[in-house]
């Protein structure tokens, strides 16, 4: 359930509730309800954020993490759609491969990090490979599902028109699977951010994941919170952009 259109009053109230939560944070940290070692004041967090973004390292870290996420996600989407189309277009390939793919699906993407470290070593490309592989799963399975769910009559039409397999994929399969693909891509963006952060943490690659881990180890809570805020913003912005793209791309489906 998404609130479709907010009235100005509700929008104002919504902002007020958010501000009240920040005020609660302020009170909790200033009133000493929670130790400042764990919970910095909002001002300190904001100061760390400004300092880090204005010529500090935080801006570079945020950029590195964002790139890692976007690059891995694009790779994952390309691979997922291509492989998914190849598997999805043939009922026989689906029968042979899909159970294995479904078995691997619940495996946490980060569980592949140790394996990748042992094969590729601690390199930035290792992290990128795991991000791409882990984020590929939702797109791959979404594409296969989209192809499997093509209306049978469309299959008959394409047979009557003697469409080649490539034409079938491009003209019927992919447009049909688009909602499933986009839903998969949205999920995979979240996975990509998570795996990028975990990869930075354990492979010590420059980025927000490493930055917040180091900040926590040095008990610099305000920097830790600044990093968490930035990661939240990256997640929020990427999700919002993708939601917008989804809306545009799927307009033709529901006139």
């Amino acid at each position: 359930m998404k609130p479709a259109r907010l009235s100005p009053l509700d929008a104002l109230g919504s902002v007020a509730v958010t501000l009240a939560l920040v005020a609660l944070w302020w009170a909790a940290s200033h009133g000493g309800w929670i130790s400042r070692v764990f919970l910095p004041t909002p001002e300190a967090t904001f100061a760390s954020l400004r300092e880090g973004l204005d010529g500090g390292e935080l801006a570079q870290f945020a950029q590195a993490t964002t790139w890692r996420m976007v690059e891995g996600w694009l790779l994952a989407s390309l691979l997922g759609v291509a492989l998914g189309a190849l598997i999805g277009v043939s009922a026989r390939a689906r029968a042979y491969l899909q159970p294995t793919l479904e078995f691997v699906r619940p495996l946490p993407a980060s569980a592949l990090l140790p394996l990748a470290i042992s094969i590729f070593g601690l390199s930035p490309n290792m992290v990128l490979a795991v991000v791409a592989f882990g984020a590929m799963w939702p797109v791959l399975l979404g594409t296969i599902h989209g192809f499997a769910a093509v209306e049978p009559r469309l299959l008959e039409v394409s047979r009557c028109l003697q469409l080649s397999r490539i034409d079938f994929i491009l003209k019927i399969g992919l447009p049909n699977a688009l909602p499933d693909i986009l839903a998969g891509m949205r999920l995979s963006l979240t996975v990509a951010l998570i795996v990028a952060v975990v990869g930075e943490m354990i492979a010590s690659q420059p980025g927000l994941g490493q930055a917040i881990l180091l900040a926590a180890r040095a008990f610099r809570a305000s920097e830790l919170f600044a990093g968490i805020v930035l990661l939240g913003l990256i997640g929020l912005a990427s999700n919002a952009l993708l939601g917008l793209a989804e809306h545009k791309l799927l307009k033709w489906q529901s006139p």
Partner: protein
Amino acid sequence: MWRRLRPWWFPLGLLLLLELHLRSLAAGSDSLAPPIAALRAFAGAARDGSLWQATLFTLGAAASGLAVAAALAIPLGITLGLSPRASRLSALSIELLRPIPSVALIPLAMLVFGFGLRMETSVVAFASFWPMLILTRAAVSQVEPRLLEVSQVLALSPWQRGLKIVLPAIVPRLFVALRLGVAVSLVVAVTVEIAANPNGMGYAMMIAQQSLDPALMLAWLGWIGVVGYAINLAALMLQQRVARAMGAAE
């Protein structure tokens, strides 16, 4: 008969190739091990008990995190679902907090709780809280309006309305939310162990890699896959059974 075997050819072929490759060209590799060696390492871990201890820790952390998340998310979701105004007013705060990647909280949880069960529980709880909150809210807002009218006619208090009308009506959907929560909590629990917490299956796998024991590492990877698959399957079956018992048409 042959049709039923079809799902097995691909994984078996892959394992066989891996076995042959690591017995011939890449024999003695430090990064990978033949599947049969991994099986042997698995049997060893099962015999000395480390397998069960780590598995129980991970499952325990996932379950306690899920319990905390459910205890918080379900009442809040019901409240927001019953009151459209509360739902609208909280929308911005929820949309701002929800996209924070759960792993970003690992360092914070480390700072607050140190290593151990509580730290992992808190991160799992944060991660599974949001999907359960959203699904519960959606479930309540889709309760048959006439049921709510009945509760008004009967002049039920908000508390009674929640307990006697809404809760039974959303049980099948709550189990859908729970199933999603189970999937999220397992993934996050293993992730926390790989990233930081020196306990459980994820950490056991990291240690196997760091001590250059690829057979044991692959054994853990396979075991994590099997455990995840089995638990997700169990959650799905539970959800479907509840849906049938409650007479909901899925």
